[in-house]
């Protein structure tokens, strides 16, 4: 009987190995590109599939989770630095792209597709190029009558305990905080953060979670990314989207573009460049505008749906992403202490 058991286990192993190997279709290595992306899979995967169809180049992707659920592609890219497996990094915000530049993981590539994109959304040295941006917006529960108009609502006693923000150690919230620090200076920014705490701001694990909390009524408003807001609105959740600080005195709304990075030492550099060209094209920006992520094209003259405000109509927070990236790394110990870790 023990022989049969061993045989059964052995056969299971063999069959499994066969299945696993069988799942790996033989692909010509020259027709592959490996992309790591922190853009949500539901939005990025259709674009990558389209690239596959149009070019015949097989895309092997590593997707990311929401920031605070697990460590993901950034750590992988850093750990793989000496023998990179990725060819392209599609970042969902430029600050992480800057981090890769600083760590010597990025290579210079100025894509012809990026020519129409304003310089403010590109690395001046050519290590990354921005495209398809999100705006940092408020989501507000529909039951709330007087909607918050400024980021200062977080410190307004009227909104005591009613606001929630994603953990500022991770994701685009870090970028937002770092941007405020560059804009206001350290003292004012820290005061703002301490006042937020005194005003009993809730801390969620991600922008998506914040949006869900607001939709469920757990909180009344939150500062999130526009794609989180639009996707929930399209799902019929009970929220509205508000662009903060659009008034004369307002600091403006932070715009967070996606960014493409060519990985230094990429094994398929030609295919990588083709993918970057594709991502930075007007056609891709149009797709991402019409998708549930409703991202704002940075090229002029790209068709957008009604609910996506063209970037010219938004008062944008004036920041330099390179400075924001540097500031982000400076303030992280403070943010860590602020969160309570």
């Amino acid at each position: 009987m023990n022989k049969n058991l061993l045989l059964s286990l052995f056969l299971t192993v063999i069959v499994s190995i066969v299945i696993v190997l069988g799942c790996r279709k033989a692909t010509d290595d020259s027709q592959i590109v490996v992309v790591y992306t922190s853009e949500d899979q539901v939005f990025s995967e259709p674009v990558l599939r389209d690239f596959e169809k149009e070019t015949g180049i097989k895309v092997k992707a590593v997707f990311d989770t929401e920031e605070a659920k697990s460590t993901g592609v950034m750590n992988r890219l850093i750990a793989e630095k000496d023998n990179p497996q990725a060819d392209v990094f599609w970042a969902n915000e430029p600050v992480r792209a800057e981090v890769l530049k600083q760590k010597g993981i990025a290579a210079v590539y100025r894509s012809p597709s990026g020519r129409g994109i304003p310089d403010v959304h590109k690395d001046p040295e050519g290590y990354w190029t921005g495209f398809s941006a999100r705006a940092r917006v408020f989501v507000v529960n529909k039951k709330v009558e007087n909607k918050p108009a400024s980021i200062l609502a977080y410190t307004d006693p009227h909104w005591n305990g009613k606001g929630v923000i994603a953990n500022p150690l991770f994701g685009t919230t870090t970028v937002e905080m770092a941007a405020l620090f560059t804009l206001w200076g350290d003292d004012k920014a820290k005061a703002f953060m301490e006042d937020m705490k005194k005003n009993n701001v809730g801390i969620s694990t991600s922008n998506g979670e914040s949006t869900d909390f607001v939709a469920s009524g757990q909180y009344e408003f939150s500062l999130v990314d526009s794609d989180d807001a639009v996707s929930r609105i399209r799902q019929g959740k009970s929220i509205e989207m508000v662009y903060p600080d659009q008034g004369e005195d307002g600091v403006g709304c932070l715009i967070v573009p996606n960014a493409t990075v060519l990985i230094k030492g990429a094994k398929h550099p030609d295919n990588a460049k083709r993918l970057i060209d594709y991502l930075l094209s007007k056609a891709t920006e149009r797709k991402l505008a019409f998708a549930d992520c409703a991202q704002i094209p940075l090229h002029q003259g790209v068709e957008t749906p009604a609910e996506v405000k063209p970037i010219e109509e938004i008062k944008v927070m004036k920041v330099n992403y390179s400075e924001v990236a540097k500031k982000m790394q400076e303030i992280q110990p403070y943010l860590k202490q602020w969160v309570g870790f």
Partner: protein
Amino acid sequence: MAKKPVLISIVVVLAVIGLLPLLVMFLRSVTVEGHFSFAAYEGLLASKNKWILLKHSLTLSFLTTLFCAIIGVPLGILLAKTDMPFRGIFVVIFTIPLLIAPYIMAVSWFNLLGREGLLARFWGERTAAVTSEFLFGLPGCVLVLFSTYMPVVMLLTITFLKTINPRLEEAGKIVSGWPGVLKGITIPLIMPGILLSCLLVFLLTLGEFGVPMFLRYNVFPVETFTQFSAFYDFGAATAGAIPLALITALAILFERIFLRKKTYQVKLASEGNRTIVICLGRFRKWFAISVGILCFFMVILPLLLLVLQSMSFNAYARGVDLAGDSLIRSLSYAAIGASMLIAIGFFCGYLIHNRSLFLWRSMDSLTVFLFALPGTLIGIGLVLLWNRPATNFVYATPIIIIFGYIAQYTALTSRVTVSMLTQIPASMEEAAQIVGAGWLRRIGSIVCPLAKRGLVAGWLIAYIFCLRDMGISMLVYPPGHDTLPVRTFTLMANGPADLIAALCVIMVLATLLPLGILTVVFRSRGLTE
């Protein structure tokens, strides 16, 4: 003789796959720009805040383990040793939360108890405000992790109850009723199994951060996670895991001291497969109702929303379309992983049980440390060690995922083996030895058949853990070769709720169906009951 070479090779395999990545990470933690430095460790516990986080972790782990033991052991006894109806169904249902990522369980509980959760619709906002208040904090964390990990205690209790020598219980029954026998004889006899399950639950909870973060209860593993995800500082992340490693060492020491002076009777050859069943008589129905109520509130209700959310053909169709290939990969990797784990874990357990090599204690400690460490730490260690052109045949293939499983989960199969071997008299192997059987023949023809129930249980437990793994898989899967849990989490970011719910249900079914088939096959061969 084959014994020493085989056991030494197991030590080497575990050292290469498990220990080396750790050493790589440890080296990172004590070097800064090529120079030796303890900077990563300075201030690790200097701030009052860190001590508070550590206290939170210990409190959460202790309470979760306590409740899991208080409920899981009696439940295991009811389901394994009585004639209560629907036992098989209850075992399956109670096991379901173990198959789902704890974070998803937390979201399910939120959908039930949150301010606008299911309960709010029936009991109003005021009650929901109270339940929401309860959920966000320590009590909520304990509730969620209890519902997730209680099956570990239940399953191991059931496994170990099958190994008891019925004569010992009969001897007790002559002079006492069943409550006295259970308290004085049965439970003490299965104490190694209970302690093992409690140790596992304690360590799993200690390393958990996703649920506490969601429910806003700050715990110590966040330190490691934050160093990885916010600072990208591998050295500091490793340093952050050291306190957890020390606590693990203390837990192992405590377990060893507690078990040191215990001896355990064995089921003799004359007993065959006999297990005494407790007849509940007129209480049969009431026990079934009570367990049913517990099952309903603990498992069915929180998961009801998940199932209801997924109830659309489109969601399942899309789920299969988006995740069908990752599902097949998950099942395959889990089967291969479980098979490798039972092979390696068996010999590791044998080595520990028989103290066959001088470093048996170190092997036990190493496997348990690896189990307790955050998967991310092991994952990054594997990347740093194996991501080289010369070892691409490992790193760029699913083999690296299997390595991750072996590194993280060997303690499960090893400890189950040790506990099973404790139940087998040494004379069984000695009798084979004296008639001339070499070591491999003794292992294959005598020890393994006698331990087969434990091996099957170990395989099934390893399969579950490999299937639900995310921490390591997330970091090492070759591009385009993600597993279902990873795929579910990556799609969760702005993915439609019904799709995510459908993927969770697919995940549960994908685990239960093969498990069910295997259980039927093994049962037909008398390997399980």
